[in-house]
């Protein structure tokens, strides 16, 4: 199972439908190059885990094992396995680090870590990437892990997927999880688990749902063991092999992050206000409309402006797709929206609301984003507010690398959200002298045909494909400009930037929502330390 270090990390380079050169063989596995939006439709049957029999499990439902180490051993932990974790604890995660501490202690090598996202706390894993305990990461690589990968130090090639793409890869068998470890704020000995109660309450556990259903072995780890039944069953114990009680599974202060505040920056507020006004003038904001906005300061502020508009007109939104926090919760409680369809919960107000309010619903990548579903929620949303590190003159966008070429962020649900009826990226025209609009994005994550509007503090560019929006806004007081004009304006202020230099070596692949490879990240030429 373990990938040989002598094997080529990747092979069979082809040019994909987006014009990017990508390999069709990565880490010894066959992959398919991007064919265009909505083009790739695999056939056959979904992947299925091994058939279990209930007679093999304790009839009294008590699956408790004394320690995570024993549970991992009982799950058959060995070289080359794929281990999955979820990221509902964000930077407060403790368990992922412990898994690899144990693997290292046991002398296991060549593991594939398949997290739904990684955070700065996972810098702890760098020594294990260096000594071969972990062969590669398939998931987001943030901060230090991203730099490590960008500098070509990871043994295997990293693979980045969207939240929906991760579910797709699990469902079609592209990634077969050997052991899923699900840290749960609340669980019973049978394995029923949820995120709404306990010291590490994080709201919901949707990112672990697919892992629980498809992994060969499933371990639920909790620091809050309750007698059966642990309700609500966000994770069903019927999928679970072993349960483990530990002292602490996460750091509560870091689980509910401090980022869920509306922005105080006057420049960002201006962008938020212009974006909200754009949506109003385009007729998007109306009685019964729906939107999705992230947890960033600008996106939150747009929500505040939407709430004001609804209040003034006596309207009500039908639903908000969210990473939820106090602001959508306030709207729900004020009667400005019927439902919150929550994908991850960012603060304690969000956790409380999810626990108490039946109109605040837990969703998962399956319901919201999955490619192999018979439709999903993302395409039903009227407007989605997203970010980007770079956008090019063809409206293609990048969310994973910075303009200096270094891999610093994951994709999250970003790619999946592009399928909403209107996608708006509110972004500053430049950040610390770095223009956001470029000729061609460093890394292609989202094709321009799905990105409708770029809203900056110095003007708003509408994708020429959206003639309907251009028509609606033609008499607007908003500064509507072409994307080329915006680019020129930034360059007049900042100067024309040089491009980063890369080696030919591919260090990570970027998947599209359907599992095809849309782009790659190459090793940067200079070491970061030398700058």
């Amino acid at each position, binding site marked *: 199972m373990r990938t040989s270090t002598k094997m080529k990390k990747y092979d069979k380079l082809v040019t994909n439908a987006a014009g990017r050169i990508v390999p069709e063989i990565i880490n010894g596995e066959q992959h398919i190059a991007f064919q265009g939006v909505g083009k790739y439709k695999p056939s056959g049957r979904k992947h299925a885990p091994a058939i279990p029999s209930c007679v093999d499990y304790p009839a009294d439902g008590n699956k408790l094992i004394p320690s995570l180490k024993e549970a991992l051993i009982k799950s058959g932990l060995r070289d080359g396995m794929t281990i999955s974790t979820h990221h509902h604890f964000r930077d407060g995660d403790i368990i992922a680090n412990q898994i690899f501490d144990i693997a290292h202690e046991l002398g296991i090598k060549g593991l594939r870590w398949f997290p739904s996202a990684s955070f700065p706390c996972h810098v702890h894993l760098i020594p294990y990437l260096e000594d071969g305990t972990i062969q590669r990461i398939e998931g987001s690589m943030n901060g230090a892990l991203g730099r490590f990968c960008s500098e070509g130090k990871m043994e295997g090639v990293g693979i980045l997927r969207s939240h929906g793409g991760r579910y797709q890869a699990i469902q079609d068998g592209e990634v077969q999880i050997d052991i899923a470890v699900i840290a749960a704020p609340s669980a019973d000995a049978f394995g029923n688990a949820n995120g709404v109660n306990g010291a590490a309450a994080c709201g919901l556990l949707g990112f672990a749902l697919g892992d629980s259903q498809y992994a060969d072995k499933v371990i639920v780890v909790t620091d809050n063991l309750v007698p059966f039944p642990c309700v609500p069953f966000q994770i069903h114990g019927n999928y679970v092999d072993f349960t483990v009680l530990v002292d602490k599974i996460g750091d509560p202060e870091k689980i509910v992050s401090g980022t869920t505040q509306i922005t105080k920056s006057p*420049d960002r507020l201006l962008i938020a206000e212009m974006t909200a006004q754009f949506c109003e003038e385009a007729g998007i904001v109306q009685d019964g409309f729906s939107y999705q906005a992230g947890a960033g300061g600008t996106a939150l502020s747009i929500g505040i402006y939407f709430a004001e508009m609804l209040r003034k007109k006596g309207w009500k939104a039908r639903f908000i797709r969210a990473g939820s926090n106090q602001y959508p919760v306030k709207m729900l409680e004020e009667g400005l929206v019927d439902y919150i369809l929550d994908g991850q919960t960012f603060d304690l107000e969000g956790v409380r609301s999810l626990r108490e309010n039946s109109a605040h619903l837990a969703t998962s990548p399956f319901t919201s984003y999955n490619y192999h579903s018979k439709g999903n929620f993302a395409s039903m949303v009227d407007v989605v507010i997203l970010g980007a590190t770079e956008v090019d003159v063809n409206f293609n966008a990048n969310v994973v690398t910075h303009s*200096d070429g270094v891999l610093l962020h994951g994709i999250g649900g970003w790619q999946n959200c592009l399928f909403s009826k209107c996608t708006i990226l509110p972004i500053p025209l430049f950040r610390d002298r770095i223009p956001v609009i470029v000729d061609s994005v460093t890394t292609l994550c989202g094709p321009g045909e799905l990105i409708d509007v770029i809203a900056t503090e110095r003007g708003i560019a509408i994708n020429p494909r959206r003639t309907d929006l251009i028509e609606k806004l033609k008499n607007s007081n908003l500064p509507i400009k072409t994307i080329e004009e915006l680019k020129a304006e930034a360059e007049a202020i900042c100067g024309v930037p040089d491009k980063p230099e890369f080696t030919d070596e591919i260090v990570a692949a970027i998947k599209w929502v359907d599992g095809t490879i849309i782009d790659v990240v190459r090793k940067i030429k*200079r070491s970061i330390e030398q700058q």
Partner: protein
Amino acid sequence: MTAENIKRVQVGNKGKNIRSDCFFEIELTNSGGIQLQSNSKVEVMYGKSNKKLISDILQYFDIENASILFEDSGALPFVIAARLEAAIKLLIDSDKEYLLPMLEQNQKPTTREQHRFSRLYLPGNTPSLMMNAGIHNPNALILDLEDAVAPEKKHEARFLVRNALRSLNFYGAERMVRINQGERGLVDLEFVVPHSVNLVLVPKVELPEHIRAVNEKIKSLQFALKQKNPIWLMPIIESAKGVVHAYQIAICSENISSIAIGLEDYSADLGVRRTAEGTESFFARTTLVNAAVAAGIQAIDSVFSDIADLEGLKQNVQISKSLGFNGMGCIHPRQIRIIHENFAPDQLEIEKAKKISLAFKAAKEKGLGVVTLGTKMIDAPVVKRAEKVIQLAIDMGKIPSNWADLLAEEKA
């Protein structure tokens, strides 16, 4: 500071929270050429162009041997040039100035009467706050060399303000600089007058002589440069003595467009606490307004310092307007809109002004000498005031400029 005994200097800002700025440490050496150590957040994108700019400036000042540390947190070229020149001028005596091209839109003169409802103060040594200030649409931006700049940073701030006047896009805002008091302020003028500043704020003015000294300096600088663009003055009255002389100050020169009051220092001068109600400064404010009206210039109110309290600001502006002020300073972009909205005529004022204006027009068409509205006779000054309100409402986007035609159409 004499150039002979200083060999190593530091200029600018660095550190974790510093953005859009840079820092230079320079030591002149006797040999070895230029040794540049560059740590830039934007090395990949702008490393080459930054190095070229630095080398051009060094050459311009004939510096051949130096050891230079450059820490860059994404500074724009005009900031880098300002920091480097400020450092060089601490090391060598030179009359030369390294000037980047002046933006075309920065050469536009302003008028004495133009609206000065909002003037956003920008600390003169903080580039990050300058970059986007204009996009918030204040009537004016003030690059502040006085209270917002620490004494040890005054030298470098002058170069930054000078370069900002040339290279920063003000997005149509009037370009103002607040100079320091006294002799230091006169030196400040050398850095702003040649660079098309529109208006100079003169702090802590107590006597007409203070303004005369500033004007003499401006004239001599403009004469030497053969410049004729108007430079307006806004004296700031910040003491009991200044209030007593407000009218003399207001009329002491033709280029005074406005007179402002600074209540922090005034309250301190009186030895009282500044309150939200402002009872303690009522005399000073009404005196200032009266002096301004008598002199035919604008009266400008003090800043409202609690940037989080937008409701308090709103009330403050409404009081300010009711006392007769024509504008006020602001210290945060969020204050701009509140100030504009509340200095603008309200609906009641606009409707009344419209009626008066229409009655006046009707009377004129009929050849009547007396204008009446209902049973009331209307004096000429009332008509003039109504026209002013209407113009203001049009300027502030509250009514369209063709409101009278639209109204006629509606009636037809």
